[in-house]
């Protein structure tokens, strides 16, 4: 009897394998949410704050348009970052050394410097020099190059995780190098990198908020503006958090699902 009660609150694990009964999961989630609600409601109840949702509600259109812009910018830079990341990952394996080192330097520079600085330099220096005035395009490209560096490392690790013995097998059955990548390497790389890739995409969406500094009127900038118009800080920023969660939670759930779906020994 006490064993059953124990099972409600604790997961039983053996190695990496865990057993959580459905009932225990429900109890766990409910009590965690309850605890959070308790802390938050206490915090907000102590807050001496004059809520003014009406003022913010008048600007609801700005939230919607900002959210859609963020969605569009994220989707576009997500697609571009995949292409850039793949190219950079393959450049790491290029026999042509200048290309290989270009890829390495790109990854190190992007990963080692703040996105804020990259956005400013790209917009005010690089884009300006090349005569690209569209801040939406520059913003999308900057984000794509930023995420591309991380994605290239994810893809590179994925390619390297396909063992030497499999490449040997592929050669032994007479596949060409192209066929080896197409039928042996990439299908496995795809499955292995989907979870980290989904995580990277979630960060990309949140990072797009930094584009507000070059006046791209995405979700964050619009919320800042609403705040400036209404002086209702909480009412402007709480919807902002929920709006980002609406984008990142599905991705995070998808990532969890893919992780279990493609977990097989290799």
């Amino acid at each position, binding site marked *: 009897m006490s064993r059953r009660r124990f099972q409600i609150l604790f997961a039983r694990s053996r190695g990496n394998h865990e057993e959580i009964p459905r009932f225990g999961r429900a109890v766990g989630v409910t009590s965690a949410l309850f605890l959070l609600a308790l802390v938050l409601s206490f915090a907000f109840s102590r807050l001496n704050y004059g809520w003014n949702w009406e003022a913010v509600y008048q600007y609801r259109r700005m939230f919607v348009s900002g959210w859609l812009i963020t969605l569009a910018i994220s989707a576009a830079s997500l697609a571009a970052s995949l292409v850039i990341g793949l190219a950079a990952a393959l450049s790491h394996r290029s026999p042509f050394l200048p290309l290989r080192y270009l890829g390495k330097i790109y990854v190190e520079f992007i990963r080692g410097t703040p996105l804020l600085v990259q956005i400013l330099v790209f917009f005010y220096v690089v884009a300006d020099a090349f005569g690209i005035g569209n801040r939406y395009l520059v913003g999308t490209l900057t984000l794509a190059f930023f995420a591309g560096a991380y994605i290239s490392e994810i893809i590179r690790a994925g390619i390297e995780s396909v063992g030497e013995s499999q490449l040997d097998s592929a050669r032994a059955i007479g*596949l060409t190098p192209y*066929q080896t990548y197409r*039928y042996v390497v990439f299908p496995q790389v795809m499955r292995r990198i989907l979870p980290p890739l989904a995580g990277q995409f979630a960060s990309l969406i949140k990072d797009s908020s930094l584009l507000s500094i070059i006046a791209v009127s995405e979700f964050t900038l619009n919320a800042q503006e609403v705040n400036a118009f209404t002086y209702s800080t909480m009412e402007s920023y709480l919807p902002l958090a929920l709006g980002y969660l609406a984008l990142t939670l599905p991705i995070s759930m998808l990532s969890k699902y893919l992780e279990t779906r493609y977990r097989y020994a290799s």
Partner: protein
Amino acid sequence: MRLRLDGVVKRFDGVTALDGITLSLSGARSIALIGPSGGGKSTLLRVLAGLELPDMGGVEIDGVPLPTDGESLIRYRRGIGTVFQSYNLFPHLTALENVTLPLVQAHGYAKEAANRYAMELLDRFQLSSHAGKRPYELSGGQQQRVAIVRAVAIKPRFLLFDEPTSALDPEMTAEVLDLIAELRAQERELIIVTHEMGFAKRVADHGIFLGSGRIVEEGPAAALFETPQSPELKAFLGKVLKY
């Protein structure tokens, strides 16, 4: 098959794996390569499989020199069935897909025909119930048997086995060796690198004993195992047959 090797040398980062292999053989249908680890057996097999190019020396199989350029090497490999020690199968493909991949991609089969033919073969080797399983769902012995079916499916000129049972427990070793013996009984030509001396003696009609990258002794398998001449082979057989 007719095999001619002339002063074959292969080095890896300064380590000499094959140190001048010279050999002329005709009429042998199954050849066993035996010898201590690091003696060069696997490297020699990989040269014959077209997976490693010799640094020096020439190799001729049935009177045709081994190709050296990429394109012809790929064509050459397509004519040979090679089975490694382990991890032969691609983990993201089912047993059936593992067998059909080379048929479709390297041998021009239509997908339908490849599926039908591969199922037929899996059936013949009592593996059809595993056709839809991925390698991780199969035992090591079953994986090796599927790998052998994949190698046989392409109707190879000959089969190469690189220690096919070294990663298996005794029971699975037996099921894989039974299958190889069955292929041997079908008069298929094969070369096998193995530590299973009893098995080598049984299936091979020619034996080659390699040590330190050289052929120390070779000859008809029966004579090689019964009356070894060189002190190295005597010592080797004494050691491996002790238990």
